[in-house]
């Protein structure tokens, strides 16, 4: 790749998605068979990764003049911290110490980490502080989701199955971050085996949302819950996650972060505990688009150990994609049309009026219980309606900002067959993949799957005929997205990640506002944009342009002592549980 005088790769004149043949590829590929379904190494005893790349090969140039006004190093963004370390204004030891101090003080409330590595992180910080390497992430601590293999460090995937597992090599994505100078500060809590929000394997909720640490009704998002909370709570500048069904975008939206789920294959899955071969996507959760770009720049690229990452278009300069097209010019870097789906600005019907009704006059213990449940349902519906109204207002404002930045906003119809092709039944085609991966463990003892067992059992029951037909249907879904939805626009605003997760297309999530539940407890509202294959550069550039003229991404939740703690009695201190059917409803 050619490089400019500053040593960074020459930026492509256009984003990578302009080179996608949106319509023609299907006709050319019908003679070909399905892509090889080559899994990462077998569980527990995988083949050693060919991590391959050196720090030199993964060093993007840091943007100049970052905003760095914070006095506490833990408040710095990833880019700010990396830049200040490079210029010698901040030492890795200061940064790691600041993060460890916050972990020690607050993680008893957040429960963001499964494992914290203070001694190892401090040793690394001292070593890297003495180093003269100019690697991009030198001395920056990262929180790594606990399904990424980390050599010599327990990797549990928050499951009974892996509770004693210590890999002897690094997942490729983490190996690249480490080679770029990153320090492993800890492994983050997650949904068991990357299903649902973070709970113990038996379903007791663990990680909380940093914006509502004492309100169990506010989801931290899952399954990369700990990764999101760690970044939102300033326990680490950035983190990694995996997404099979919304597990990067949902926690990013829930906690005011910028997360990107790249196109399938853009980041190697080698050395990451698999959940669903065809839909697992590793990616970063970060404080803003520039941080996400820097993380992805390091994580992305071909890996001989993961065939899904080979033969793809070259990795563009994501970091440059987040910069303005000219100094001081806030407009979008590339001409971009944003598609808006029919339901994007439409909310649910207003909730029924509150207050007791005729049917609330039931008497007796059972009757009182019914009254209570109805009241809770009404309150839930009212809160959901208010949340929806706040989301729609934020979405309208976001689209207006994009128009001011030069975007064209167009209405996009849902493609033919959309409802069927994206239904939960067709989404269930993924289930046999996870059941096959874990078949030996299912034979050994089904109790090891805890509260998420149902999905694995159901996966064993989907006949091969339906699996093949469902896999064929996914190509029809992809064609519908490319030929109908994305034929009229470059990116499309999404309300759910599942369709793009099903076919492996990229998504970015970023904060666009807050719902004012109370002055002390605002809740982030986020947006999600989907793009063409390998459109990560465009998605990052769009989010970065938005963040140049808004400040939602700079807002941080108060520390736990800024919230009202629950009473210390059993009701106040108890952590709620997810039921088996809850997991089926919200699982990956």
């Amino acid at each position, binding site marked *: 790749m050619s490089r400019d005088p500053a040593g960074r790769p020459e930026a492509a004149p256009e984003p990578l998605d302009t080179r*996608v043949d949106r319509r023609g590829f299907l006709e050319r590929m019908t003679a070909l068979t399905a892509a090889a379904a080559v899994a990462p190494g077998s569980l527990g005893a995988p083949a050693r990764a060919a991590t391959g790349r050196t720090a030199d090969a993964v060093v993007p140039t840091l943007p100049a003049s970052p905003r760095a006004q914070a006095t506490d190093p833990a408040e710095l963004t990833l880019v700010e911290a990396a830049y200040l370390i490079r210029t010698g204004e901040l030492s890795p030891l200061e940064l790691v110490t600041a993060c460890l101090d916050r972990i020690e003080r607050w993680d008893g409330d957040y429960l963001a980490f499964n494992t914290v590595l203070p001694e190892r992180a401090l040793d690394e910080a001292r070593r890297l502080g003495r180093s003269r390497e100019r690697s991009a992430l030198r001395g920056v601590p990262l929180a790594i989701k606990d399904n990424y293999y980390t050599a010599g460090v327990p990797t549990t995937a928050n499951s009974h199955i892996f509770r004693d597992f210590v890999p002897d090599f690094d997942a490729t994505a983490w190996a690249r971050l480490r080679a770029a100078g990153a320090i492993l500060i800890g492994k983050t809590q997650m949904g068991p085996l990357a299903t649902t929000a973070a709970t113990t394997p038996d379903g007791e909720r663990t990680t909380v949302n940093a914006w509502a640490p004492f309100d169990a009704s506010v989801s931290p998002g899952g399954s990369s819950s700990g990764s999101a909370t760690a970044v939102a709570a300033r326990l680490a500048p950035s983190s990694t996650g995996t997404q099979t069904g919304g597990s990067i975008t949902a926690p990013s939206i829930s906690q005011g972060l910028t997360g990107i789920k790249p196109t399938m294959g853009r980041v190697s899955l080698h050395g990451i505990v698999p959940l669903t071969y065809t839909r697992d996507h590793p990616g970063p959760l970060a404080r803003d688009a520039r941080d996400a770009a820097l993380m992805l720049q390091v994580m992305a690229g071909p890996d001989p150990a993961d065939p899904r990452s080979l033969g793809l278009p070259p990795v563009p300069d994501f970091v440059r994609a987040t910069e303005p097209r000219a100094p001081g010019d806030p407009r979008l870097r590339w001409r971009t049309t944003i598609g808006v789906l029919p339901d994007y600005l439409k909310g649910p019907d207003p909730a029924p009026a509150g207050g007791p009704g005729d049917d609330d006059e039931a008497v007796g213990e059972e009757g009182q219980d019914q009254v209570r449940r109805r009241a809770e349902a009404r309150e839930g519906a009212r809160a959901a309606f208010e949340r929806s109204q706040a989301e729609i207002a934020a979405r309208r404002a976001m689209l207006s900002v994009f128009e001011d930045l030069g975007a064209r906003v167009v209405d996009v119809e849902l493609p033919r067959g959309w409802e*069927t092709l994206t239904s939960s039944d*067709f989404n269930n085609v993924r289930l046999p993949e996870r059941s096959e991966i874990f078949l030996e463990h299912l034979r050994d003892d089904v109790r090891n799957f805890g509260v998420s067992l149902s999905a694995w059992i*159901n996966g064993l029951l989907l006949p091969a005929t*339906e699996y093949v037909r469902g896999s064929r249907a996914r190509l029809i879904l992809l064609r519908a997205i490319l030929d109908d939805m994305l034929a009229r626009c470059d990116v499309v605003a999404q309300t759910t990640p599942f369709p793009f997760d099903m076919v492996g297309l990229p998504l970015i999530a970023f904060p666009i506002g807050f719902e004012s539940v109370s002055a002390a407890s605002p809740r982030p509202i986020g947006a999600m944009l989907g793009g063409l294959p390998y459109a990560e550069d465009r998605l990052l550039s769009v989010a970065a342009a938005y963040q140049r003229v808004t400040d939602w991404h700079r807002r941080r939740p108060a520390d736990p002592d800024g919230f009202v703690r629950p009473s210390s009695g059993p009701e106040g201190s108890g952590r709620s549980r997810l039921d088996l059917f809850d997991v089926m409803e919200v699982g990956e």
Partner: protein
Amino acid sequence: MKRGTTGSERTDLQDAGGLTDEQLDAYILARLSMLGVDLSVLPEEDAAAPADQTRILASARRFLRSTPPAIADFELDALGPPPMLYPSESTTWGRE
């Protein structure tokens, strides 16, 4: 069934087999037994347990009554698309 029909239109076909809970349970347990997967280590019914046989079987019945029929009823031409495990990656095959 035409391509693109909705779930609500499939109701009659979902029940076409007319299988009872007992018949489905027998099918589920036979399939699991063939694979060597044993549900009997779970409590029969215990709401406090992470999983029990009653809830697992209920979930499996619901799955079998919905997902396989919905997919099987989705008509595809024999010369239609081949199965694609990694759809997005196929877009690279036509790149110049």
